């Protein structure tokens, strides 16, 4: 969101007669610049809310219609991995918040550490997601591409899940609706993962720049705004986790 001008060290931001070099020409004060970019970030997050809003609407309606299918679909997800991923993401949100704090306190080492941790946690999240997706692929649960509804017409054919939930077999028409569940599952987690990928890319960029001390000389707008983005992505997951994994477990 904000500019990427190199930052001169030691510029006193409180002095207004001299503009620090990171202040863009069309802003009157640094405060104004910070305010404006911060507000812009929030507005951008609003658009993101609405973006996911469409998906949530679709999910709620279909879940209402095809509840039994959604139950068996969500039995295919692993609560263990889901919880692990939630934890990972929450911790990464924490390290991101700490990054902002470190930038505010102008502690370069701390900032770097926290950014790197966030980066790694983001990768871990994607890794776990990858494991889960891979399992879907192996079990023919990728709608449209690699799909069979065998496990729902005949749950016993999937001994692992069957042992845990003792699912009844679904009537064929209901069983076919599980594909809808997985379609939404992939659409939602896929969109979320896409946001993670973008976030991680930006994190990489920030780590490089943080090494040069870019954010620890008083101008930490970029870190703060990126933090907002990261937390937002976290919030999306906070909702995806119960929606996809938790709320449809009981028939």
């Amino acid at each position: 969101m904000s500019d990427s001008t190199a930052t001169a060290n030691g510029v006193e931001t409180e002095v207004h007669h001299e503009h620090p070099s990171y202040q863009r020409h069309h802003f009157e004060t640094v405060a104004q610049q910070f305010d404006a970019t911060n507000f812009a970030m929030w507005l951008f997050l609003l658009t993101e809310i609405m973006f996911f809003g469409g998906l949530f609407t679709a999910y709620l309606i279909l879940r209402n219609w095809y509840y039994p299918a959604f139950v068996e679909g969500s039995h295919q997800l692993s609560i263990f991995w889901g919880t692990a991923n939630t934890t990972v993401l929450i911790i990464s949100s924490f390290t991101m918040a700490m990054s902002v704090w470190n930038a505010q306190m102008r502690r370069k080492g701390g900032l770097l550490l926290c950014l790197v941790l966030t980066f790694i946690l983001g990768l871990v999240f994607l890794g776990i997601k990858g494991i889960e997706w891979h399992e879907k692929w192996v079990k023919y649960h990728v709608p449209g591409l690699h799909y069979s509804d065998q496990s729902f017409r005949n749950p016993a054919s999937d001994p692992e899940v069957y042992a845990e939930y003792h699912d009844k077999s679904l009537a064929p028409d209901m069983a076919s609706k599980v594909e809808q569940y997985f379609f939404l599952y992939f659409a939602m987690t896929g969109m979320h993962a896409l946001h993670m990928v973008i976030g991680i890319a930006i994190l990489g960029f920030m780590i490089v720049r943080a090494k040069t001390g870019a954010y620890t000389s008083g101008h930490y707008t970029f870190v703060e705004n990126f933090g907002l983005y990261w937390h937002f992505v976290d919030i999306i997951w906070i909702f995806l986790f119960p929606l996809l994994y938790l709320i449809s477990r009981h028939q």
Partner: protein
Amino acid sequence: MSHISPVLWQFLVKWLTNFALFPPEASKIAPQMDALYFFMVLVSLVGLTIVVLLIVGFSILYSKKRHPEAVQIEGSTLLEATWTIIPLGLFLIMFVWGALLYFRIYTPPANAMNIYVVGKQWMWKAEHPGGQHEIDSLHVPTGQPVQLTLISQDVFHSFSIPAFRVKREAIPGRYSSVWFEATTPGTYHLFCTQYCGTNHSQMIGEVVVMTPDDFRKWLQGSTSGHSLAQDGERLFASLSCNACHNPRPDARGPNLVGVYGSRLTLSTGQTVTVDDAYLRQAILNPSQNITQGYAPIMPTYQGQISEEGVFALVEYLKNLQSDYRIQQTLNTTVLPANSEGNAAGQAPAAQKAGGQGEVQQ
């Protein structure tokens, strides 16, 4: 030019002699619709006149020549309240009036005669209860409320009869309905008004309104020999519905005699009234609404029955008032249970396991 102008001239003459601002009023609802329509036209004209008068009047009165110096005014709460409240009032009248019409058009009376209509790219097929089929045309009598039950086989279509002022979308996968009562014999346009692909503009036909006598004659002249319900009965037997839905004490499915119009309690605890839409749903997506006390063992017939077939079954079930004939078919043909050639059908074991009739979320 010279060879065009006579043509153009003919046109204009023809048009001026047949000039119309609105289509013929050939149904009972049409004059009511037109009343509201003309009320709205009137309000619009008055509103437009006021706006134009204000603009023209002020432009003349206060043009720079006449009125070189503007007088600044802040506004006027009173005036502004006026032109907030008056339009609001008028709009609310239109809303209420419109809503009344809407409910009238989409609420068929109980004594309406039902015609089934399937829309598909790019034709309309109508099925009369007496077994008469029509393509791209619809014959209806005057003086008799007619209800259309519409469905689309592929994409959205829209069944529009401008002379009746009614229109309803034919939705894929769901019944919709509309009704009218024709008043004037004649032939009227039938359009598909929802864009439905390449030949959307060819998905047209005609609605022929006849006096009841003529209509009766037409019905007799175009019968296909068996009624829709008879078609349905045959399907009911050949798809072996009667293997489960029969009056025997050990029947696996509920008895369907008199089910139409009754209230059912579902396994979720909800109650529903059985109408056409519910019957269709019960046949094609049986596991979506499980009747209380039964197992979800009914196979789906999605993809095995055409929409016309479903219409026939629905019509049959609607008129199913006694067990007698089901009993008959059962006695003459021995039907293997669950033999509907459903290659990918459930494993029998799974069906046994599915003996869960419990009340649950």
